[in-house]
C-alpha cells in the first residue's frame, strides 16, 4: 500500500514538473526561423531510362550509392539532370549530351565512349589526371580514356564481353572450349552436323565483339599499343587492315550458317537469343559480364555455363568497353564536380559499386568475388589479356561505328565494302582531326 502511495506521488510530481516546463517557453521576436546554410550544387547529366517504378534499376542504384557517399564527403548536393528520347525522331542521349556539354549546361556527365572521344577532342572535358584516386586505376582505364594526353573520363565499372557457352553441349560432343577462330569454326561444324541449326545466337548489337577480339589482339597485347594507336591516328596505318580478319571470320560464320544473319539483324540484345540458349538449342551466345549475374539474362541455367573470351590468335580474348564520368572543362561548378568525381572513384566507392553490381572494378585495389562461371574470363582480364572496344585515344570512334558496319555485313554488304567504310571514317577523322560518325553510303 505504501509502495502505491509512493508511486502515485512520484507520478504527480513528474506531471507537475512537466506542466512547469510547458509554461516556460518563450517566443522569439522574429518569427522566421533562421535559414539553413544552403549547400552548393553540382549538376549531373545522366541517362534515365524508361523504367518500371517497382523494378529497381540495379546499375543506377549502385551509381546513386556512390553519389550519396560523395555528397556526404564533399558537402555538395548532386542534382540529376536527365534526358530520355521519346522515340527515334527525338535526339539521342548522346546528341543531347554533346549539346549540353558544348553549351556548358552541366558540371558532371555520364558519357558513352564515342561522346567522350568527341568532347575530349573538342577540349570540352576537364583533365582528371590530377584527382587523388586516379593512382588506383588500372592501366587499361587510362589507355581507354586518354585523349590528346588528357585523362578526360573515368568509369565506375569495366564492362567485359565474352562468349557464354553451354559446357554440357561441348562435353556431349567431345569438344574443348575454343581458343582460336579455327577452333570455333570446328566446334560450330560439329554442332551443325549434330543437328544444332544455329550454333551461335546473335543480336544486332554485339557481333562486333568477334571483330574487336581478332582485330586488336596484337595491338593491345603486343607491347606496342601507344605507337600503333599513334600511327592509326596519324593515318600511317589503316583500321581496315586490323578489321579485315574479323569481318572475314564473321562472313564465314554467316555463310556456313553458324550465325543466322537475318534473325540477328532484327534481334535485340539478349531478348533475341536467350530463349534458344536457355533451352539448349544454341550452345554459344555473346553478352556482357553482368548478364551472368542477372536472372533475367543468363544468371540461372539448367546446364553448366561458362563465360570465355572471344577466339583470337592469342587465345580467348575478353573484350572491354566502358562508359565514363567526365567533368565539363568550362562548367560552372567544375571544382566541386571534380571533388565529387574523385570520391565516386575512391576505392571505397568502387568497392561498393562492384559489390552492388558484381562487376569488374576500374580500381586495381578492388577485387571481386567472381562466380565460377565467370572465372575463365576474369582470370584473363586479371592476367592483363584483353582488347578494348572503346578507346577515346583513337581518332575514329570504335564501338558505335563498328556496330553499324557489322550490321551492314549482316545486311549483305561484302567485307571489302565494310573495309571501305572504315577507310572513309578514318579519312574523315583525319580531315576534321576530331571524332566522326560512321556514315555508310546508302
Amino acid at each position, binding site marked *: 500500500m505504501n509502495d502505491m502511495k509512493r508511486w502515485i506521488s512520484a507520478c504527480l510530481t513528474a506531471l507537475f514538473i512537466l506542466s512547469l516546463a510547458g509554461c516556460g517557453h518563450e517566443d522569439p521576436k522574429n518569427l522566421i526561423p533562421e535559414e539553413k546554410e544552403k549547400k552548393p550544387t553540382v549538376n549531373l547529366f545522366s541517362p534515365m531510362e524508361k523504367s518500371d517504378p517497382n523494378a529497381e534499376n540495379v546499375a543506377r542504384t549502385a551509381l546513386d550509392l556512390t*553519389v550519396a557517399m560523395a555528397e556526404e564527403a564533399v558537402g555538395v548536393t548532386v542534382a540529376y539532370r536527365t534526358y530520355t528520347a521519346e522515340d527515334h525522331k527525338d*535526339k539521342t542521349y548522346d546528341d543531347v549530351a554533346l*549539346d*549540353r556539354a558544348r*553549351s556548358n549546361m552541366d558540371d558532371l556527365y555520364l558519357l558513352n565512349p564515342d561522346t567522350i572521344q568527341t568532347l575530349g577532342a573538342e577540349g570540352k572535358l576537364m583533365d582528371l589526371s590530377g584527382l587523388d584516386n586516379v593512382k588506383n586505376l588500372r592501366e587499361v582505364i587510362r589507355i581507354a580514356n586518354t585523349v590528346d594526353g588528357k585523362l578526360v573520363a573515368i568509369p565506375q565499372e569495366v564492362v567485359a564481353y565474352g562468349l557464354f557457352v553451354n559446357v554440357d553441349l561441348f562435353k556431349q560432343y567431345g569438344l574443348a572450349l575454343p581458343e582460336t577462330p579455327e577452333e570455333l569454326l570446328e566446334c560450330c561444324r560439329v554442332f551443325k552436323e549434330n543437328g544444332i541449326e544455329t550454333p551461335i545466337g546473335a543480336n544486332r548489337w554485339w557481333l562486333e565483339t568477334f571483330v574487336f577480339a581478332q582485330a586488336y589482339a596484337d595491338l593491345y597485347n603486343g607491347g606496342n599499343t601507344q605507337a600503333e594507336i599513334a600511327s592509326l591516328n596519324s593515318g600511317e596505318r589503316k583500321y581496315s587492315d586490323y578489321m579485315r580478319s574479323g569481318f572475314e571470320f564473321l562472313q564465314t560464320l554467316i555463310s556456313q550458317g553458324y550465325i543466322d544473319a537475318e534473325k540477328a539483324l532484327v534481334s535485340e540484345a539478349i531478348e533475341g537469343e536467350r530463349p534458344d540458349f536457355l533451352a539448349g538449342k544454341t550452345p554459344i551466345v555473346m553478352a556482357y559480364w553482368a548478364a551472368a549475374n542477372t536472372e533475367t539474362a543468363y544468371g540461372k541455367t539448367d546446364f553448366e555455363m561458362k563465360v570465355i573470351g572471344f577466339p583470337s590468335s592469342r587465345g580467348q580474348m575478353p573484350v572491354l568497353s566502358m562508359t565514363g564520368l567526365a567533368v565539363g572543362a568550362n562548367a560552372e561548378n567544375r571544382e566541386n564536380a571534380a571533388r565529387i568525381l574523385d570520391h565516386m572513384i575512391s576505392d571505397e566507392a568502387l568497392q561498393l559499386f562492384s559489390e552492388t553490381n558484381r562487376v569488374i572494378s576500374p580500381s586495381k585495389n578492388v577485387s571481386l568475388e567472381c562466380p565460377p562461371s565467370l572465372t575463365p574470363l576474369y582470370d584473363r582480364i586479371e592476367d592483363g589479356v584483353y582488347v578494348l572496344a572503346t578507346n577515346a585515344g583513337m581518332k575514329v570512334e570504335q564501338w558505335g561505328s563498328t556496330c553499324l558496319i557489322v550490321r551492314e555485313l549482316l545486311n549483305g554488304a561484302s567485307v571489302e565494302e565494310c573495309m571501305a567504310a572504315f577507310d572513309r571514317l578514318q579519312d574523315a577523322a583525319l580531315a576534321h582531326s576530331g571524332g566522326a560518325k560512321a556514315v555508310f553510303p546508302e
Partner: protein
Amino acid sequence: MKETSNKQERRRSLSLLLSIILIFSFFGAIIFSVSQKITRKMSASAIQNLSESLDLIESTIDAILRSQAEFQELIAQEIAQAEDPEDYIRSYDRNQTMAKMSLILSGKTEGVSNTGERFTEEGLDFSAGGTVIGLPVSQSYLNYMGTWSYTIKCPVERDGGVLGTLYIEYVYDAIDQSLPEGFYNQQALLYIMDAESQRFVLKPKGMGQRNAGHLNLTDFYRANNIQEPAIRSEVEDCLSTGRNALFYHDIRDIQALNYMWAVNNGTIFLVGYVPVEAIQQEGRTVTQNIAIVVASLLAAFFLCIALYYLNWRQQEKLRQEREAERKLHSQQLAQALQAAQIASESKTTFLSNMSHDIRTPMNAVLGFTTLLDKDADDPVKVRKYTQKIMASGQHLLSLINDVLDVSKIESGKVVLNLEKFALSDVVSSVDAIIQPMAKAKRQEFHLEVTGIRHEYLIGDETRINQILINLLSNAVKYTPEGGNIWFRMIGLKQRSNQYEHIRIEVEDDGYGMTPEYLETIFDAFTRAENSTTNKVQGTGLGMAITKSIVELMGGTIKVFSEVDRGSLFRVDLELRILERTADRQFWAQRDISRILLAGGAGESQENILALMQDTGVHLDAAENAEKALEQIQDARSFQLVLLDWESCGLQAVIRLREVLPNTTPIILLAEFDAEDLEEALKVSGTESLTKPFFVSALREKIEELRYTGDETPAPDTEESGDLKGMRFLAAEDNEINAEILTELLELEGAACEIAQNGQLAVERFQRSAPGEFDAILMDVQMPVMNGHEAARAIRALDREDAGSIPIIAMTANAFAEDEKAALDAGMDAHVPKPLNMDLLKKAIRQHSRRKEKG
C-alpha cells in the same frame, strides 16, 4: 442461498460491463465524428492551400512569359528603328533568358540568328495556337543546347508595314530559376508539361523519386499507376479546355493530391503531386495532439480503474485473510475440541484398560497371597504361589515403566544418550532375547543382516534395543504358534559417507491389522482389540514409544499389514559411522592378511566382504569346500578360514583341518541353533561364530583363540552369600519397604538398621563408630531431609570414612536423570525400586570391593 448471491453478482458484473461498453461506444462515436469533421476540414484546407500555391506559381510563370513577350515587343520596336535589322540581331549576345534571337525579313524564308548560323522557321511548330499577350508561342522543343525551350514570334513593324518577324528562343531553365525551391518541404513533385505534345519540359532536380515517369504524361500515368479511366478522361478534358484539375490518387501507397494546373491559358501545365501529409503537417500535429489528449484521458481513466481495482483487491485480500484466519481459528478450536475429546476418550479407555491390566495381576497377587496365607505350611505350594506373585509383580512393573516412558517422551524429556556401539552387540542381544521367546511359541525366527558396511556406529544403543525389542516382541506376541518372524537389518545406499543408512524390517505372518487400526497404531493408549489378541497382554504404549524414539533419532517408521497375512514394520535410521583407524592395526598386529571364506550363498559372502573391506585383510571366497580345498592346495597361505556351517557340514571341516596347518583356525559360521555343531567343534582349532557375521564378533573370537591355553581372566562369580556379616544403615521412611529391606538383607545374612528420614540417618552415621556400617542404603524421597541432602551431609561430615563409605541410592525414581542426580549428590550407585536383590548385591559388592582396594 449461495447460488442466488452468485446470480446477483453475475448480473451486477454484466450490467457494469454493459455500462462500460456503452460509455466507450459513446466516447468512440464522439471521437469518430470529431475526427471525420476534422478530416473534412483538413481536406478542404489542403485543397485550398495547394490551389493557392499553384495559383501563385501559375501567376509567376504567366508574369515571366508576359515579361518575355513584352520584352520581345520592345526589341522588335528597336529593330524596327535600326538601320540594319539583321546586323542588330547578330550583335545581340545570348543571355540566361534568351537562348537565341533570330529575324526573318518579310518575304524571305530564311533569316539570321545571333548565334551566327542561318535561321528558318523549320522545326518550330506554332500550329497549336498558343499565345502570350497575343504573340504566338511555339511548341516546346529541345534546342541546340540540349535543353527544353520555346520560341515566341513577334512582328517587326515599321511605318505601319511589317518589316519582318522576330523569333526569340527562351529556355525553360529560366522559369525553373523563378520557381519555389523546396515546394512543400521538397516533398512535392513539379513538372512543367507542354500541353500540345504532353511532354515534360521541366523536371525536378536532385535525388530521389527518379523512377517516376518524367518523360511525358503517359509515362507519368504509368509510373504512378494512374489508370482509372474516369480520372484520365477528366484530366484529358481539362487539358483540352485549359482548365485546372486536382484529384486524390495514392502515389506509392501514400495519399497524394495530384494536379494539372493550366498556365498561360493552357499552353503549358504544371503537373505533379503533393503527399497530403506534406500539406497537412500542422493538421497531423493537431491530430497527433488530439490523439495524445485522448490517450492521456484514457490512460488516466484506466489508471483510476486500476487503482480502484488494486485497492479493492487489497481490501478483498485482507477480508479473505481475516476470513481464512477466522476459519482457521474455528478449525483449530474444533480440532482442539476433538483432540481433547479423543484424548479424554483415549484416557478413559486407557484408564479402563489400565484398570483392567492392573487389576488382573493385582488380582493374582492378592489372590495368591490369600492362598499363601492359607497354605503357608506347604512349601511346594508356597513356592508355586510366590512364583506367580513374582510374575504378576514383574508384569505390573513393566506396565508402569511403559506408562512412565510415554509420559516422558510426550513431555519431551527424553534425551538420546549417543555413544559408540557395535551393531553386532545390538543384534546379538536382541537375538538372545527374542530367540527364546520365539522358541517358546514354536515360531521360526529368521535373522538376516545384509549390505551393512560399518558396524561400529554412534547412537543410543539402549533406545535402539528398545525399538527392536518392542517391534520383535510385538511380532512374537501377535503371531500364533508355529508362525514365522523375520528380522532384517539392511544397509541402504549411504546418503553421506559419514552416516550408515540402515533399514530395519520386522515381518511376521501373524494376525495382521485392520486398516482402521493401522491408522492409530502409533497413537498412545491404543491396542488392537479383538478376540484373538485379547489374550495378549500389553499396555498399548509400545508402538507410540517406538515411533517417538525413531523420530527422535531422525528416522522414519512405516507399517504395512493385512489381516491374517501378517505385518511388516520398516524403520529407516541414519547412524553416524565411528572412525576406527585402529581396525587395520588389529589385523596387522595379529599377522592376519589373508582369510579364506568357504561356502555360503553369494549374498552372504558379499556381506562379509563388505564388512571386512576396511580391515585391510584380503578375503578369498570359495563357493564350497572343494573350491576352498583347491585354493589351499594352490599353496596360498591363509591365516584363518571362515566356513559356512550350514552349506559345508562336518566333512568339510575335517578335510580342511587335514590340509590346513594347526596354527590356522577354522571358524564356523552357524545359525543360532545349529545342529551337530558340537561334533565339529571337537575338531582341533575349530571355533564357531553365530550368524549373522560381524567383524567385531570375529575379532572377539580371534582374541579368545589367542588366549586359549593362557590364563583366562576369571569371571565374576555369583556369590549368594557374600553379604553375610555385613551391616547396613538404611534411610527409609516407608515402614513396609523398611521391613522388606530388613527381611531381605537378613535372608542374605546381613544386618540392617533403619532411620526414618535423611536427618536421622545423618545423625546415626555421625554417631556410629568407624567401620560400624559397611554401606548406607538411601531412599530419596523422605520427610525432613531427602536422600540427596542426606548424602551431601554425610559426605560433608568431618569423619575419616565420610568420603569413602558406599552410599547406594535406593529409590522408585528410576530414570537416568534420577541416577545422575544421585551420583551428583555424592552417592556411589543407584538401585531402582522395586528392589531387585541381585542388583543390590552387585552394587554393594562392587563398591565395597572398590573401597577395600582404595
